[in-house]
């Protein structure tokens, strides 16, 4: 199992990435918004400690809706199973913006400024997504002659949220210090979990809106 801290410099966020996550696209934010972003990013540099973990395991796709890994049957559902086709092994993973980031959020919640809370929240999302990208880049380094699929998570596409329990069991129950509550909420909040298929012949297509059933999503590409 590969369980690691990520130096912040490896995933350092640019203001543009944060603006992009908010949804600005080509538009420009108010000066105050930009100031808040720059201030928070400077703070992040000093304090944040993202982490990732993955377990590489053999496995097989069973029927059209499940993946068998070690003694666990992951009921990934038809959509994700199809996207995992031809995988010869799997990376079961978790990643988090970290407990340090969670502490910063809790600290800032004591101030009343909702603008700062919101931007910090978006920054946390961007950090954990980049930690996920970093994890994928590590896979590429460690398996140079293999391809890998996009990352897929329980809670998406009929892969039930409660299946996170199996992922946590495979990862030793407290991967990167992340805990799982009885309703399958991860703590720290800015964390992700899931599976990546590895093989010489897998689909590398991005998971996109076309597969997702969340019709009310504000990020949905029209």
């Amino acid at each position, binding site marked *: 199992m590969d369980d690691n801290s990520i130096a912040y410099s490896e995933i350092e966020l640019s203001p543009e990435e944060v603006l992009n996550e908010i949804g600005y696209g080509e538009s420009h*934010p108010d000066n105050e918004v930009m100031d808040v972003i720059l201030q928070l990013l400077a703070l992040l540099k000093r304090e944040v400690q993202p982490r990732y973990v993955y377990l590489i395991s053999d496995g097989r796709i069973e029927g059209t809706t499940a993946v068998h890994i070690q003694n666990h049957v992951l009921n990934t559902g038809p959509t994700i199973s199809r996207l995992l086709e031809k995988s010869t092994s799997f990376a079961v993973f978790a990643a988090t913006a970290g407990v340090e980031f969670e502490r910063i959020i809790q600290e800032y919640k004591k101030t009343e400024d909702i603008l700062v809370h919101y931007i910090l929240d978006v920054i946390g999302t961007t950090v954990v997504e980049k930690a996920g990208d970093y994890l994928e880049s590590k896979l590429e380094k460690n398996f140079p002659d293999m391809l890998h699929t996009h990352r897929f998570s329980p809670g998406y596409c009929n892969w039930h949220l409660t299946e996170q329990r199996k992922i946590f069991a495979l990862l030793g129950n407290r991967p990167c210090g992340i805990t799982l509550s009885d309703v399958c909420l991860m703590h720290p909040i800015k964390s992700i979990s899931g599976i990546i298929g590895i093989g010489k012949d897998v689909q590398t297509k991005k998971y996109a809106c076309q597969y997702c059933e969340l019709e009310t999503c504000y990020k949905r590409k029209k």
Partner: protein
Amino acid sequence: MESIDKLYEAILKGNLPLAVEMTKIAIEEKIDPKSIIDNYMSKAMDEIGSRFENGKAFVPELLMSARAMKGALELLKPLLVDNNIPRAGTIVIGTVKGDLHDIGKNLVASMLEGSGFEVINLGVDISSEKFIASVVEHKANILCLSALLTTTMNYMKEVIRAIETAGVRDKVKIMIGGAPINSAFAKEIGADGYSSNANAAVSLAKQLLAS
């Protein structure tokens, strides 16, 4: 009277210090507080809201306007009380038991406050007992429930059943929201309405109280 046009601009641009200053001047000029709110402040909020809906403004700008509006409203509150002008209404809001997500709910709370509602924000992981106690204590007109996961949204149904059992269902409208919620779910569990974002939540709240 110049101050009052600047007040509109201050709120639209989300400039809190300017909004406060202009409100003070408008009060000194003895402009009717209800007219300040209805004809200038709320109009600015409507404008930023419509820019948001049209993709010309984003969540941060919306929040800055709401913040400026809230600051200006604080100054007008005592005058509204003195003149017996009714407030928009009282709202209790919280994220349901088991769920710890709060940014979306806080955005909704801010926008509602910026629209003149009295908002009691209970926080996250709130049980039905706590919701009921707060609704009764504050004589709330609307209860807002938030959840971000399919595993926690079902608790909303429990809250609504408990409100019925407590005999207060006919005294309070119930609005729900959060990423996995949609209007079909709202209907199914007997809520009065759903909206997909904080801006739309304000119109929904106004609409529910008008009906």
